């Protein structure tokens, strides 16, 4: 267990970094508004699976990096990621019991919350597009969940 720990941490960071790359990989312009929130989903998965490892502080730092990466005002995503992680940490025991589709709905509401916070503080005009990432994220959540669970089991992250 003790020698597993550093490796687990590296795997966890790797998944976050890969998610970050997925967020900025170029895709056609018309699809850009429909990009799933890879980093947020990865973060929420780890918060749900390993609440004692992934805390609000970690979420805040990831959010800050995302702020910088996407070029928004510093701190908006940091704040909102920390907020939704807090919500997940509060309810992680119940969430683990829920069937996958119900989890996906929870994820949808959290992604929507993050997007609303983001639009509130940015010069962009709010439109129905705030729903787009939330809905797409909901649809890919089962895949993300399955992949990350596989990673967690294979590499013994705990």
């Amino acid at each position, binding site marked *: 267990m003790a020698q597993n720990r550093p490796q687990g941490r590296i795997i966890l960071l790797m998944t976050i970094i890969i998610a970050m790359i997925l967020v*900025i990989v*170029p895709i056609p*312009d018309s699809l850009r508004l429909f990009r799933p929130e890879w980093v947020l989903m990865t973060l929420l998965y780890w918060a749900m699976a390993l609440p004692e490892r992934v805390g609000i502080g970690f979420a805040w730092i990831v959010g800050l*990096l995302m702020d*910088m990466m996407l070029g928004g005002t*510093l701190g908006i995503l940091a704040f909102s990621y920390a907020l939704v992680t807090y919500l997940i940490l509060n309810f992680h025991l119940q969430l683990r019991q829920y069937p996958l589709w119900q989890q996906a709905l929870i994820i949808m509401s959290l992604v929507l919350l993050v997007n609303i916070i983001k639009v509130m503080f940015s010069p962009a005009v709010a439109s129905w597009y705030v729903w787009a990432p939330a809905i797409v994220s909901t649809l890919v959540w089962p895949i993300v969940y399955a992949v990350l669970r596989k990673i967690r089991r294979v590499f013994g992250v705990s």
Partner: protein
Amino acid sequence: MALFFLDSRLNYFAPARVALATVLYPIQIAAAIPSDLSHWMGDFFEDRDQLRNRNNKLESMQLLSGMRLQKLQALERENMRLRELLGSSFRLTERVVVAELLTIDLDPYFQQVVINKGKRDGVFLGQPVLDVSGVMGQVTEVYPFSSRVILLTDPSHGIPIQINRNGLRAVAAGRGLGKPLQLEHLPHNVDVREGDLLVTSGLGGRFPVGYPVGTVKSVHFPEGRPFAEIAIEPTAHLSTSRELLLVLPIESLDNTNEEPEVTVEQANGSE
């Protein structure tokens, strides 16, 4: 925690931003790899015929533009002489540096791109950015190895322009992803027609004079509104250009007092 994001609106965190950007640069490079690779593969597997065709086309284009340039030099000289007669100053042609776009997507709500030249290469804040066919935007943030360019279409960006046909001056503001620019605050009786070419006016001191910005796409005079609605199609290929030109500073701006510096603080494209 709320403190943090209130503070960050006030630019206290500029050094932190630079540090974070440097940390994130490798990730951005990694994300750009797939599209770079596909470009490279495309180059690699291009066959001889294609290459020869392209070479021919480029040579003829080079011939054409060389011919135009000869004429242009004569015209430039003539223009300079006439301006000397008028007693006003003339700016020499600007020098440019070529930079390359990092092919990554940022937040779709902001119209920004990252380029691969930074403080190390002498990029500075507010530096105008062009592509082969027109103005693209200006530099908003400079990091050691890269910098961030805000495009004309960003909702918080405005660029001072004038109409090439009649010299009318205005500000063209961005409207977001995939939408045309909009001319701000022009009355109903304004003389703008579809197809008019807009060039930079040089007011505000950010952009050099006379680079094409866009063409007028449609003109509407809505009833009951104080201002005309004029949509502009940018001439620069904002979403497809990979090579950009960074304009180096021209000689001091002091001797350009022929143009009154008015109205255009919007040109400073805010955060």
